[in-house]
C-alpha cells in the first residue's frame, strides 16, 4: 500500500479531516476565540500523543511527562536568551528544532537507567524526576530562577507571529498522528506491544526491550519538547511553572477518554475533553479538577478502553477500521 493508499483508510481520513479543518481556522475565522480555543486544544492533543507513546505503547506510567514540556520550553527560550543580545532578526521559531532534540537526548540519558525499573517504581521515579528538574530551574539564575525568563527583549513584535505558533502546533499534531499510526503498524509497534503485554516474555523472544523502551520514551520526549519550545516562544515567557504536575493530570484524562495506546484516541479524547473542559471552566471555574479526578476513576473502573476501545468492543466489525 503506498502512502496515498493509507489516506483512504478510515482512521487517517478522520484524523486528516480534523487537521484540515484546523488548518482552515485562521484564514476563515481570523485570530479570535476559535483560534485560541483550537490552539490550546492542539497543545493538549500533541502532549497526549507524546504521553501515549510512553504510557500507551509500552505501558510505563509516566507521571512526570511534563518534564519534557518544560525542558523544551527552556531549550528554545533559554538558549534564545543566551545566544542573543537584542531583538533577533530571524524567525525565533528556528529554536523549536533544538527544543525537540534536547529533551529527546535527555530522555535517552535518563531513560537508560530509569526504564530498568517498572510499574509504580517508574511512575514515582518520573514524578520525582519532574520535581527535581523543576527545582533545578527554580534555582538556576542564568534562566531567571523562580521568576522565569521574559523573552520580550529578544522578540520584536512581528505581524503574524501567532500564526507561526499555530501551524507548528498543527504540524506537530499531524506528525504525531502519523508517527503513532505507522508505529503501531510496523515492527517497532509489534515490539512495543510485546513489551506492553509481557516484558519478560518479549525479552526471551529476542526483543531488545531496552532499545525499544528508550525509543518510545525519546519519541514522547521529542513531541512534548517541540510543543514546549513553541509554547515558550509563543508566550514570550519561560518559567518553572512549565513543569507543573497539573498538566499531567489533564494529559492522562485525554489519553484515557480517547483510548490508551491507539492512534486516533488522543485526538478524539482531546477534542471531547477540551470542549467539555472549556464549558466546565466557564460554568464552574474551580470544580473542573474534581470532575477530572472523578472521570479518571469512572474510566478506570468501567470503561478502561476509552472511547475507541468501547466502540471496538460493542461493534466488533469496527476493529478493521478503527486503529
Amino acid at each position: 500500500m503506498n502512502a496515498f493508499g493509507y489516506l483512504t483508510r478510515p482512521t487517517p481520513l478522520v484524523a486528516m479531516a480534523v487537521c484540515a479543518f484546523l488548518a482552515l481556522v485562521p484564514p476563515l475565522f481570523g485570530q479570535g476565540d476559535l483560534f485560541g480555543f483550537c490552539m490550546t486544544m492542539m497543545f493538549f492533543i500533541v502532549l497526549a500523543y507524546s504521553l501515549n507513546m510512553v504510557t500507551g505503547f509500552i505501558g510505563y506510567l509516566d507521571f512526570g511527562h511534563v518534564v519534557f514540556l518544560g525542558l523544551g520550553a527552556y531549550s528554545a527560550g533559554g538558549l534564545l536568551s543566551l545566544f542573543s543580545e537584542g531583538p533577533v532578526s530571524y524567525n525565533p521559531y528556528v529554536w523549536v528544532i533544538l527544543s525537540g532534540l534536547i529533551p529527546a537526548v535527555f530522555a535517552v540519558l535518563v531513560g537508560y537507567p530509569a526504564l530498568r525499573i517498572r510499574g509504580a517504581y517508574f511512575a514515582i521515579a518520573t514524578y520525582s524526576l519532574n520535581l527535581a528538574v523543576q527545582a533545578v530551574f527554580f534555582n538556576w539564575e542564568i534562566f531567571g530562577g523562580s521568576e522565569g525568563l521574559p523573552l520580550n527583549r529578544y522578540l520584536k513584535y512581528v505581524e503574524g507571529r501567532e500564526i507561526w505558533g499555530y501551524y507548528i502546533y498543527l504540524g506537530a499534531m499531524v506528525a504525531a498522528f502519523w508517527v503513532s499510526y505507522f508505529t503501531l503498524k510496523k515492527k517497532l509497534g509489534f515490539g512495543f506491544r510485546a513489551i506492553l503485554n509481557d516484558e519478560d516474555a518479549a525479552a526471551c523472544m529476542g526483543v531488545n526491550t531496552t532499545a525499544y523502551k528508550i525509543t518510545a520514551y525519546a519519541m514522547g520526549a521529542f513531541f512534548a519538547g517541540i510543543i514546549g519550545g513553541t509554547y515558550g516562544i509563543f508566550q514570550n515567557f519561560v518559567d518553572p511553572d512549565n513543569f507543573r504536575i497539573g498538566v499531567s493530570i489533564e494529559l492522562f484524562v485525554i489519553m484515557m477518554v480517547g483510548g490508551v495506546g491507539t492512534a486516533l484516541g488522543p485526538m478524539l479524547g482531546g477534542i471531547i475533553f477540551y470542549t467539555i473542559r472549556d464549558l466546565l471552566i466557564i460554568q464552574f471555574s474551580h470544580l473542573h479538577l474534581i470532575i477530572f479526578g472523578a472521570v479518571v476513576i469512572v474510566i478506570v473502573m468501567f470503561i478502561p478502553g476509552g472511547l475507541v476501545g468501547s466502540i471496538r468492543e460493542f461493534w466488533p466489525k469496527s476493529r478493521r477500521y478503527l486503529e
Partner: protein
Amino acid sequence: MILFVQAVINGVLIGSIYGLSALGLTLVWGIMDIVNLAHGEFIILGAFMNYFLFTLLGVNPLVGVLLAIPAGVVVGGVIHLLFIRRVIGRSGLTTLLLTFGLSVLGNNIMLQLFAGEPRSIQWIRTSLELWGFFIPVTRLIAFCLVLAMAAFLFYFLERTYPGKAIRAIMQDSEAAAAMGIPTGSILLLCFIIGTVLAMMAGTLVSIVLPFQPAFALQYTITSFVITVVGGLGRPAGALVGGLLVGILESFTGTFISQAYTPITVSVLLIGFLLVRPAGLFGYSTR
C-alpha cells in the same frame, strides 16, 4: 558540630512522622499490591481534621491524634469498599490510575472546601534546651507517639490473629486463603490500617509543621521513597527509612538549601532502585 547534631535531632524528629506515614503505605503496597497514590491525601485529611477540631471545637490536639483512629476506619473502609476492592489483583496500570484519580479528586475537594493557604496548629510553642541543643516540645511529643504507635503495630502484627493473617497473606495469598483465612476481610482491615496510620501521621504533621492540600503529593512521594529505601512490606524498614529520609532532608536544608530537598530525595530513591531495589530490610530475591 553543634549544627550537625542539631540537624540530626531535627531530622530524627520529623523523620519519625514520615516513618509512621510510610508504615501505612508499605503495608497496603506489600500486602494488597496496590500503590496508593492517594496516601498523601489521607495525611492531609488527617491534618485538616486535627486542625479544625482544635480551632473550632478547642479539642486538645493529642486527643485529635487518637480520633484519627475512628476517622481512618470510616474513610479507609468506605474507599476500600467503593473503589479499591474492585481492582485488587488487576494490572499495575489499573490500580495506579485509580488511586491517581482518587488523589486528584480528594486533593481538589480539600482545596475547594478548605482553601489552599498554609495552616498550622498554634499549640505549645516552647522548646526544651538540652546541652545547648533545642528540641521543640511538640516534635518530641510526636516522636514519642510514633514510637508508641509503632510498638503497638508490631505487637499487633506479631502476636494477634489478624496480624498473623496479614503476614500470611503477604507471604502467599492463595495458600493463606486455602488455610481458611478470610482474605477479603483481612484486606479490608489492611487498607483500614493503612488509612489510620496515614491520618494519624497527618494529625501529627498538623501539630509540628505547616500544611496545605498541595503538600499531599510531596508526602506521597516521601512515603514511597521510604518504602523503597526500607524494603517493601517491611514495617521496621519503614521506620528506619523514615529516619534516614528525615535526616537527609534536614541535612540538605541545613547545609545546602531547603530548595534542593526534592533533588537529594530523588537521588536517594533512584540510587536505591538501581543499587539495592529490595531496600534495606527487604528480601533481596524479590
